[in-house]
């Protein structure tokens, strides 16, 4: 486990910023402030942020915001995006209706 995920590390207090109400995840309408506060609440990984705030979990599945969220979390952790483990990749890779997803033709 890399040190970026070390929860005993002191990342300092959450300090409100003027652009905290900026929408980052366009689909689920999650703001920069919500993401920043979540990091200070102890959610250090992209996967945790996604589950907690639903950022990147909407219709587009993070197509637009993944990079932005990563940047915000990294900055809050005093790190760089490249150090952060990206969200897990799993099927379906694109939004798909349940009726189609359930309609598999394996043969």
């Amino acid at each position, binding site marked *: 486990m890399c040190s970026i995920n070390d929860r005993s590390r002191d990342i300092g207090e959450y300090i409100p910023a003027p*652009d905290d109400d*900026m*929408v*980052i995840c*366009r689909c689920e309408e999650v703001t*920069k402030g919500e993401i920043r506060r979540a990091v200070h609440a102890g959610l250090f990984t992209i996967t945790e942020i996604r589950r907690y705030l639903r950022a990147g979990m909407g219709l587009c599945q993070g*197509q*637009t915001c993944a*990079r*932005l969220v990563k940047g915000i979390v990294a900055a809050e952790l005093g790190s760089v*995006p*490249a*150090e*952060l483990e*990206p969200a*897990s*990749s*799993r*099927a*379906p*890779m*694109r939004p*798909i209706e349940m*009726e*189609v*997803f359930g*309609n*598999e*033709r*394996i*043969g």
Partner: protein
Amino acid sequence: MKRYDLIIVGAGPSGLSAAVEAAKRGMRVIVFDENDKPGGQLFKQIHKFFGSKEHRAKIRGFRIGEDLLKEAAEFGVKVVLNATVIGIYPQKEVTVRIEGVVEHYKGDAIIAASGASENMVTFDGWTLPGVIGAGAAQTMMNIHGVKPGRKILMLGSGNVGLVVSFQLMQCGCEVAALVDAAPRVGGYGVHAAKVARTGVPFYLSHTIVKAEGEDHVTGVTIAEVDDKFQFIPGTEKHFEVDTICLAVGLSPMSQLLKMAGCEMEDNPRRGGQVPVCDEKGRTSVAGIFAAGDVSGIEEASSAMIEGRIAGIAAAEYLGYMDSGESEQAIKEQEEALEGLRQGMFAPQNRGKHIETTDEGIQISESLLKKGYIGDDEIERYPGVRHTVGIHPVMECTQNIPCNPCQDACPKGCISIGQNITSLPIAVEGTECVGCGMCVASCSGQAIFLVDEQIEEGYASVTMPYEFLPLPETGTKGKGLGRDGSPVCDAEVIKVQTAKAFDQTHLLTIKVPEDMAMKARFFTF
């Protein structure tokens, strides 16, 4: 389960190129693409490509796309459209959504050529209708024939921002300004210069403060930023626009490869999360290859070569070629790729501020900050010479991999030499016949034919012109300087259109003698 020798994800430049090479060697190839048309972004590229002959330089992107489709059809490549690959599982099992069904396919090899997605930046109002990606603008205008807006502000001075700005003007939109937070233009100087000379102001070290409007964009405020990218109060500028176009880079769309278990790395020089690949496009999973933007952001020309390499490597992997044969085929492609990865915009130079050319000539600071070369700077480049009679003036001032002008001239007036990134030289002692082939062949629209004295007190300037309406002989208007400001009265004395010019018209204007080296565009 349907079985193929090779499954390719993405029918863009790299995917199709890979398919052709593999099919050529007798493989059964299937290509899936989620879009309803093949070609990826190639069909949105209406400008002439850079490079040399082997890279298909001076041919417009969409024509390269047409040729690639033809080639794929010839070799029996099966391209399935509206087919979204939604997963890659162990044993190279691929799930594809085709209409209302999730189909399972199995490939003995897989090439991921899924391309890239656009990066975005946030600012106050960035979710308003009217704020669009540069790719959206290209799709709307060049594929669907609808203008993305009436008056547009472009954010981003990389090649995408520059090329799309020019395309917006070509389809009849007005570009209010080109803005970039970086202190210097990121794309080719020649792309910047052709935008600047039409009168588009460049604002480097500026970014968007706010998109204005209730239900959609009605205006935008930009401001200067300091070296820490913080706004400098009091530097705000306002533009009334209905559209803000964002061209701030691309990220590899590599999630499928991650799911497939390929070792990944976050490599900022490649644009983000990419598979770890060798020079043949082989990932850490045997039989899975990556090519094109998914393995690192580059131009379409490089993507096509990477695709060919991956196609050959896949053929070798499955025994359709012996290794000696494939080594030879790959070597040829690698040399071509190497040719494109030279010069000051090469991947290894990304982010570097290069101050002089390979020839030791100072790069124009004005070009990097305002998008055009200063009148006092132009004389220092080897493509700019003064002789009696008509002669070419090459305003090509950076080491970029491109040399069609050298081949275009039947009289040997232009020389680039062996190294395709060298600046073009106006060769002494040669005689220009004024055929204009060099003007039309220059992908950067940086070559002009100048006759410094056609009659007492007057000179002529021949320039590339790709706008509508096309002026006629006798049309009177203004000559614009490199910065896009009117410098003199001008009259069109010749308009040339030829098949060999490929939609680039040659406009010859008559200007006062002292404007021969200053007037570079025409408006009426």
